[in-house]
């Protein structure tokens, strides 16, 4: 029996897609590498997922789990074909235990939906990637996603207490942070679907802060704004979020949202201070003082909840609003030590100029997590090549500054050839040993994370060059 026939038999025809027009929707994510899978399956529960994995592994078909496809690095792209598992139907909050501040969710639950479900109990979920209105907790877990509030609450790995996952033989396992044995939960989070297919996630919930203040400071340029961030963090102050947008981004955002960001400034710094009311008030005073000493041209606190929400909504929608001014854009994700932000931004600017590409910056400054957006037109071949080359140069610059090549989107397909710039063959071999435990045939999301050839014998498309392989994001990407 063929693979597809076995999938039909196991899941029923309404849970298996094979028509090219259906498959094409699953051929790319926010890093647009197009390749049709053999089939897309829409499991309803963990048992369905287990059946799919068993069948696929027996048939030697790659297995590519997919949340909402908002990742920037091609992590959800079926570059080797195979079977895409969409979690669209596994979107239930299975349990919400307010007393113990935890929840069990299926991987297809949208990030924001969990916080909405928890709100009546005075709770929320910490990690809030800007894509949280559409990205799923399964995808967030796979990439160890962060978001603006990672500064104070940490990334997914700091919130996942356990995962249920399917192993290569189709058996269900459960890894718990509190269980005896090695911390499998810790390695499954951020493994980008290469170690197992996650079917349920136990997460902790946080108490909603008693008071939240959101402030906006204007600066002459993005280097000055980031120097202020370095000074704030260096003074031992950790507000709940420190975000920067440069002039190009602010004008796109304001044209779309009218949230009240100053459009004449070279850069704006968004500061959120959440906590107990007394502390938030004194925290704001101290941070405003440091910002002024670092050259802030203005400082304004949002008047109420509506204004706070508007400022955040436009910040989180920044990339989307670029559609007004850019035919296409490419978002990079890299991290540097926080004191190196001004140099990193200067290097980004130099690289963009050298490649004759306009660049916008909107990023999680408090964590040193850069997101330069390079603007281009994908119909111009030379521009596409320039973007690929500039993207790589930015990563190299961040590494040279003591940083790394992914803060919250993972390595995926795009950055795997860059990974050896960060890690030695010995470092990568240690990671490959772990992979061998979980996936000896390398069918779980192949061609992701690990560089081709170097450690894993994954040389499958040696003739392709990096630029041939890259089909850059056509918009709609998130960060």
């Amino acid at each position, binding site marked *: 029996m063929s693979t597809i026939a076995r999938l039909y038999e196991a899941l029923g025809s309404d849970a298996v897609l094979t028509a090219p027009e259906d498959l094409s929707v699953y051929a790319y994510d926010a890093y647009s590498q197009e390749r049709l899978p053999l089939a897309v399956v829409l499991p309803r529960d963990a048992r369905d997922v287990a059946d799919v994995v068993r069948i696929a592994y027996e048939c030697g078909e790659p297995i590519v789990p997919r949340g909402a496809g908002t990742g920037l690095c091609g992590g959800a792209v079926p570059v080797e074909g195979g079977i895409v598992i969409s979690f669209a139907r596994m979107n239930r909050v299975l349990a919400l235990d307010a007393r113990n501040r935890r929840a069990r969710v299926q991987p297809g639950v949208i990030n924001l939906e969990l916080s909405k479900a928890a709100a009546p109990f005075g709770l929320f979920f910490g990690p809030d990637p800007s894509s949280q209105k559409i990205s799923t907790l399964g995808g967030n877990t796979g990439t160890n996603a962060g978001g603006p509030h990672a500064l104070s609450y940490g990334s997914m790995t700091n919130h996942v207490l356990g995962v249920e996952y399917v*192993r290569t033989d189709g058996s269900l396992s459960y890894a718990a942070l509190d269980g005896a044995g090695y911390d499998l939960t810790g390695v499954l989070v951020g493994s980008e679907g290469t170690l197992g297919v996650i079917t349920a996630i136990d997460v902790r919930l946080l108490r909603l802060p008693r008071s939240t203040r959101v402030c906006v400071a204007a600066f002459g340029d993005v280097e000055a704004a980031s120097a202020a961030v370095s000074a704030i*963090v260096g003074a*031992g102050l950790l507000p709940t979020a420190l975000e920067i947008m440069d002039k190009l981004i602010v004008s796109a955002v304001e044209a779309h949202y009218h949230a009240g960001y100053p459009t004449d400034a070279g850069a704006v710094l968004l500061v959120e201070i959440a906590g107990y009311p007394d*502390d938030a008030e004194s925290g704001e005073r101290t941070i405003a003082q440091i910002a002024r000493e670092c050259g802030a041209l203005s400082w304004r606190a949002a008047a109420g909840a509506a204004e706070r929400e508007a400022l955040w909504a436009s910040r989180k929608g920044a990339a989307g609003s670029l559609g007004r001014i850019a035919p296409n854009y490419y978002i990079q994700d890299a991290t540097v030590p926080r004191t190196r932000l001004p140099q990193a931004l200067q290097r980004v600017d130099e690289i963009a100029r050298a490649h004759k590409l306009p660049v916008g910056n909107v990023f999680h400054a408090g964590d040193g997590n850069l997101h330069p957006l390079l603007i281009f037109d994908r119909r111009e071949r030379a521009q596409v090549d320039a973007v690929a080359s500039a993207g790589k140069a930015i990563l190299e610059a961040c590494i040279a500054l003591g940083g790394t090549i992914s803060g919250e989107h993972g390595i995926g397909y795009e950055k795997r050839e860059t990974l050896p710039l960060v890690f030695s063959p010995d470092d990568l071999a240690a990671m490959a040993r772990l992979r061998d435990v*979980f996936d000896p045939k390398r069918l779980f999301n192949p061609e992701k994370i690990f560089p081709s050839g170097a450690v894993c014998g994954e040389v499958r498309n040696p003739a392709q060059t990096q630029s041939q392989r890259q089909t850059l994001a056509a918009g709609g990407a998130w960060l």
Partner: protein
Amino acid sequence: MALAPGLDPAAFALGGKVPLRALAPASIEELAAVVKACNEAGEAVVVFGGGTLQGIGFSPARYNIAISTARLDKVLEYEFRDLTISVECGRSVERLNATLAERGQFVPLDAPSPGLSSVGGLLASGWSGPRRATFGRPRDFVIGSTVVLADGTVAKAGGMVVKNVTGYDMSKLWCGSLGTLAVLARANFKTLPLPETTRVALAALPERTRRRAVEHVAALDVEPSVAIALHGFPEAGGRDGQEGRLFLMFEGSHTLVDRATRDLRSAIGAAGVPETTLLDGTAATSAFARLLDAYGARLGERSLTYRSCGLPGEALSRCDALAHAATRHELHAESLLDILGGDAYVRVSTKLTAEFAAAVERLDASLGTSSPTYTIFNAPEMLRDGLKMWGNEMTSPATQRDIKHRFDPKATFAPGRFAGRANCSEGKRA
């Protein structure tokens, strides 16, 4: 190689086994060379930090060489404005935090005996203390690591940035691996600013008010960073006899801590708790240090401590169930219950050392196969291997053993301590 040959192997004995040699490499390169040589010669190695948490797990089945990390104690990088630090893993937790304190920072590792406890030993033990619910576990502060694998390979993961999804998060695998996969040589941490002030509140906790007081504390508006219900444990501020003790710690600004104190007094007053003693400044930090020390403290060879993890809302019941079981087997039970984190530690003891082994073996056998599961946190060396050190369940034991085999195929690192003796079934839910 200068490996400090003067070390006395007897000081590194475990489970009655004395290693042939005890070595103390002075650099990561020396450490790698020593490990490689031991691996090639088939010598079983136990890595020693301060030895404070060696009581976790079984004793090693084979044990030839002790490797002390005591000389690997340097600060490698500290850019305090980045709130990150990188240290060699033999550095004591106390010295790590002393370096950070000079810049008004800390890492909440909550080590018992921090002067002895090494950074690497603490991480490898999987320890998490009473501030886990507030700040996170030690592993949550590790942003990068360098280890020496059994074949002498030096491998790093993560880096010196606070947000990083570059490659697998191998540091998570090393944390809690009890030195059975690799030797932690270097650890990079993200740090936190020290709170403006720290206050400890101690209150009597009579038996009749206990359940209500615990619920009130869990619902306090200003959350304490530590909330422990003590029963016994006099060295930690508890009381002998029936009366329990509530140990709360608040950290933050002066205004916040003052408000927390007012809220607390009215809340626990409403729960029927009579009076509160407040400790500030060094009195507060000393009281917290004594509490941490109590976790690991054993009463000679006549006690051990069970640890039970689980939902905070069920912690009291779990704690009491074990304490009652201990009493039934003629053991004296003391408990240390983390109201926010849900951990319960129950120390069981007898008056006479001669009576202990038989009593605790009866208790351990009676705990049976039903949940909840209790793991043993520290046991007298000679009793360890006869007790259910890991409780009844280990998730995915076959995977655990496979990991051990891939990273340490010759079983060089502490063989038998962790994986490989699992008395449990694959895939069972925790």
